[in-house]
């Protein structure tokens, strides 16, 4: 019996009882003292002890008065005695009634808490679809229940995103696994397999494991974005872009793609150097991948209205308007076969978006089919006041179509 309901009932009844007892005791004592100090017959003694009207108060008349006083005192004492008994009885009844009333009222007031507890009790991590949906007046408990419902909705959404992601990731890992398994099974079950068959199988298995390694790397990169230990160093965005462009020169040269740099002044920003380099590398990797042989990829950087930007432009086949909305989604690919042969995990741009968001920045894309694409990474400049959003401007783009911004 240590419930809040029980304690509230006891407390309420006790307080009420004590207050009532004090009130009754005060009334009783006041009455008592009044009666003792000022009997009604005192005044009578002064002017009415002359019953026969002879102008004098005779001894027998005083005797009568004395009797009357005695009678009055006895009557008063009797009344006070009765009153005390009734009051004590009433106090007892009051205590019992207040216990009952307190029990019922506290039960009614506390019943939403019971409902909240029941729902919380039934919710499991896998099923967050239940809500309290408390009805009634907009009071403290309703607000508590609504807050709880809001929290459940956010948790539910987060869990769904998570499980969707896990199912996508396992799906992506199953394909290379199936490639390995089937190729190995087929060559193992062939009694006449030649060394060349084994070699072919080995090459296929290596391709598949390379793909899985890249996918696992990207999954780790995404997971790391959610961990709190990102660095917050003072960095030069322009120098980072130059460094990443240098790393890609060999890859681009193999495809006869030239990387031209237009980086200009230092751009101080705050952030994690490795993460920002990864974001720029993912963007540049895409640009080089989709650039036609012999075409240039331009890496430029600059500043505007308190924001620093790095733009990566290719002259590839471009991205249609409806695809521009989806390219930042996890595991999205335009053409799965082509992306696989070029080694994409489908996570590159979602990693870029995650890194930009972590740095309070934005990625924007502008493209028209057949006219190439421009990706711009915007980050707020260090020590400079900036608007909430970077300026609505695409570096070096004229008539490339409206820019799409992520996060929108």
């Amino acid at each position, binding site marked *: 019996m240590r419930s809040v309901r029980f304690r509230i009932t006891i407390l309420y009844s006790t307080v009420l009882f004590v207050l009532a007892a004090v009130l009754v005791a005060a009334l009783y004592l006041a009455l008592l003292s009044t009666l003792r100090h000022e009997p009604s017959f005192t005044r009578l003694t002064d002017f009415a002890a002359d019953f026969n009207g002879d102008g004098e108060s005779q001894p027998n008349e005083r005797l009568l008065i004395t009797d009357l006083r005695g009678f009055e005192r006895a009557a008063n004492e009797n009344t006070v005695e009765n009153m005390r008994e009734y009051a004590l009885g009433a106090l007892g009844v009051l205590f019992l009634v207040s216990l009952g009333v307190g029990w019922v009222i506290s039960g009614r007031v506390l019943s939403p808490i019971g409902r909240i507890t029941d729902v919380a009790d039934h919710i499991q991590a896998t099923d967050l679809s239940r809500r309290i949906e408390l009805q009634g007046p907009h009071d403290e408990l309703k607000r508590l229940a609504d807050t709880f419902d809001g929290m459940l909705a956010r948790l539910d959404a987060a869990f769904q995103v998570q499980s969707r992601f896990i199912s996508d990731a396992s799906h992506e890992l199953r394909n290379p696994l199936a490639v390995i398994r089937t190729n190995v099974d087929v060559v193992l079950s062939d009694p006449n397999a030649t060394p060349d068959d084994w070699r072919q199988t080995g090459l296929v298995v290596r391709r598949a494991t390379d793909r899985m390694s890249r996918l696992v790397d990207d999954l780790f990169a995404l997971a790391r974005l959610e961990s709190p230990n990102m660095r917050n160093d003072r960095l030069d965005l322009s120098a980072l872009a130059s460094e990443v462009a240098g790393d890609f020169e060999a890859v681009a040269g193999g495809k006869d793609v030239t990387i031209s740099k237009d980086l200009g002044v230092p751009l101080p920003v705050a952030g994690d150097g490795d993460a920002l380099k990864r974001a720029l590398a993912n963007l540049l990797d895409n640009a080089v991948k989709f650039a036609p042989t012999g075409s240039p990829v331009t890496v430029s950087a600059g500043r505007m209205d308190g924001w620093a930007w790095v733009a990566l432009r290719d002259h590839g086949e471009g991205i249609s308007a409806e695809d521009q909305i989806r390219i930042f989604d996890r595991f999205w690919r335009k053409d799965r*076969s082509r992306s696989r042969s070029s080694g994409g995990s489908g996570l590159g741009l979602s990693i870029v978006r995650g890194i930009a968001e972590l740095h309070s920045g934005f990625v924007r894309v502008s493209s028209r089919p057949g006219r190439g694409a421009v990706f711009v990474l915007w980050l707020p400049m260090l020590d400079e006041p900036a608007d909430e959003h970077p300026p609505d401007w695409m570096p070096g783009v004229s008539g490339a179509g409206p820019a799409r911004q992520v996060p929108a």
Partner: protein
Amino acid sequence: MRILVVEDEHDLASAVAKGLRREGYAVDVSYDGDDALGKVMVNSYDLVCLDVNLPKLNGRALARRLRSGDIATPEGASPRILMLTALDEPEDRVAGLDDGADDYLAKPFDFSELTARIRALLRRDAGRSGVVLQSGTLKLDTRRHSATRCDAALRLSPKEFALLHYFMSRPDEVLSQEELLEHVWDENADPFTKTVRVTVMTLRRKLQRDGLPQPIETVVGSGYRLLGAA
């Protein structure tokens, strides 16, 4: 038996095709849904191994179109569909089967399980339930890939085995050269060569036993027939 493998992972498609060819099936490969649809309309397949996530036309849509009947297949054939996919949630299986798949196998799979399921699906067409087909004195074990006549083993090449398998799943039916070419050879076979006639001839020679009638007879002007009683 002719199979179409529809799979956009080239490394997986080629391994499945190679393994199935070794099992004696005639196998064609498509890397996307549109191409598969074109092939199904031109060639008569006994079975289609279908991936779900395909470029251009996805596997579920392809299965629905195959089952809807508005696709003109040769001889009105309706191939068995085995869905082969990385989507392994119960709801994915239900959706795939409801779209018209006859069976569903999740990646990664055991190759021997794949071939067992294919055998089981093809048996349904033949109206037989065992892995061993029997017709008169002929016995054919589809799992061990062995055939016997009067309990004496026959040494058959994969193509001859596949041909005998097709004959034995349709005993007493007259099968034209075109039909045999359609179901036992893949799309790389040249329809103008005598390959069917030559293979039937060598098969008949291997089936010949002294004192017993030849089980495969020529129906002049129509094709060949396996005599169920021989």
